[in-house]
C-alpha cells in the first residue's frame, strides 16, 4: 500500500504555489498518492490565466531573478507535471460559487468537490500539509 499525502492549498501567491507543487510532484514521483484541495485564494494556483502571473510577496520581487537563475519551471508547467504524475487536484465548490467561477476557467483534469471529498481522502493519509 503506497503512502498518501493530503495537501490543502489556501493561498494564492507565487511562493505558496511552489511550496504546494514542489512537495506534490516530489511525493508523486516517489510513488505516493497525492491529493490537493484548492480553496479560497488557493484556487488561483489552478486558474488557467491567474496561475501564469501569481504575485510575489510584497517587497520580495527581487527574487524573480533567482527563480530564473535556478531554472525553476513556471507554475503552469508544474501543474501539468503534477497532472501527469497522477496528482489528484480538487477545486473547492463552495469557493467557486462564492467567486462566481465555473470549472472551465481552471486547468483540465481537476475535480470539483466539497470539503468531504477531500476529507475522505485525507482520512487515512500519512502526511497532511496546509499551505
Amino acid at each position, binding site marked *: 500500500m503506497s503512502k498518501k499525502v493530503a495537501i490543502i492549498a489556501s493561498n494564492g501567491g507565487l511562493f505558496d504555489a511552489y511550496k504546494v507543487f514542489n512537495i506534490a510532484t516530489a511525493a508523486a514521483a*516517489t510513488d505516493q498518492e497525492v491529493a490537493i484541495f484548492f480553496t479560497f485564494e488557493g484556487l488561483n494556483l489552478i486558474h488557467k490565466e491567474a496561475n501564469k502571473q501569481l504575485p510575489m510577496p510584497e517587497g520580495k520581487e527581487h527574487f524573480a531573478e533567482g527563480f530564473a537563475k535556478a531554472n525553476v519551471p513556471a507554475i503552469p508547467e508544474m501543474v501539468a507535471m503534477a497532472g501527469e504524475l497522477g496528482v489528484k487536484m480538487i477545486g473547492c465548490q463552495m469557493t467557486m460559487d462564492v467567486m462566481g467561477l465555473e470549472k472551465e476557467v481552471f486547468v483540465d483534469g481537476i475535480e470539483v468537490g466539497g470539503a468531504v471529498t477531500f476529507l475522505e481522502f485525507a482520512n487515512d493519509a500519512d502526511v497532511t500539509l496546509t499551505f
Partner: protein
Amino acid sequence: MDVTVNRVLDAKGLACPMPIVKTKKEMTNLDPGKVMEIQATDKGSTADIKAWADSTGNQYLGTVEDGDTLKHYLRKATAEEEKPEKSHPHVVNLEDLQKEIEGNEKITILDVREPAEYAFGHIPGAVNIPLGELEKRFEELNKDDHLHIICRTGSRSDLAAQNLTEKGFQNIKNVVPGMKEWTGSVDKSH
C-alpha cells in the same frame, strides 16, 4: 572511476524537484536489474536521490563528483531479490567468511553483482562476473577452487551457486546475506 551503465539521464541545471521527477520517469522505462546514471547540478540531489531510492525500493549505489556535476548511480531492483528464496544447501555467513579470508586456506570470492555495484565497493580480491554473464564466462573459474559466491542480498549469488553446481563445481558456498550487510574491508578500485 569508470562505471558501466545502461542509461544516462541528464538533469543538469534543473532545480528540485525536477531531478527526482525526471528520475522517476526514466526509471519506469528501465529493465529491472539495470543501472542508471543521473547527472545533476542541484546540490540537494544527493540526499534526495538516496531518500527516493529508499522509499521506492530501488538501490542507491553511490555518487561521483565530476567537476560541478554530480553523477548518481541507481540500480532498479527486482521484486524477487528483496525476498530471497535460497535453495543452494551450502551457505556461509559474513562472520565466517571474514574468518576464512583471514585463515590459511586459499578461498576465491566470486562477486556476481553488476560491474557498477562492484565498482562502488567489493571485498578485496573478489572476482567480478555478473550473474547475467556467468553462463558464458564460467570457464574463467577454476572448478577445484574453494568458491564463495556473494551478491547484495544472497539471492543472485544463490542462483549462481545452483548454476555452477549443475556445471560440476563441487566446492561452492553461498554467502548470506551479502554485501548489503558486509562491514569488513572494502575495495573501491577495480
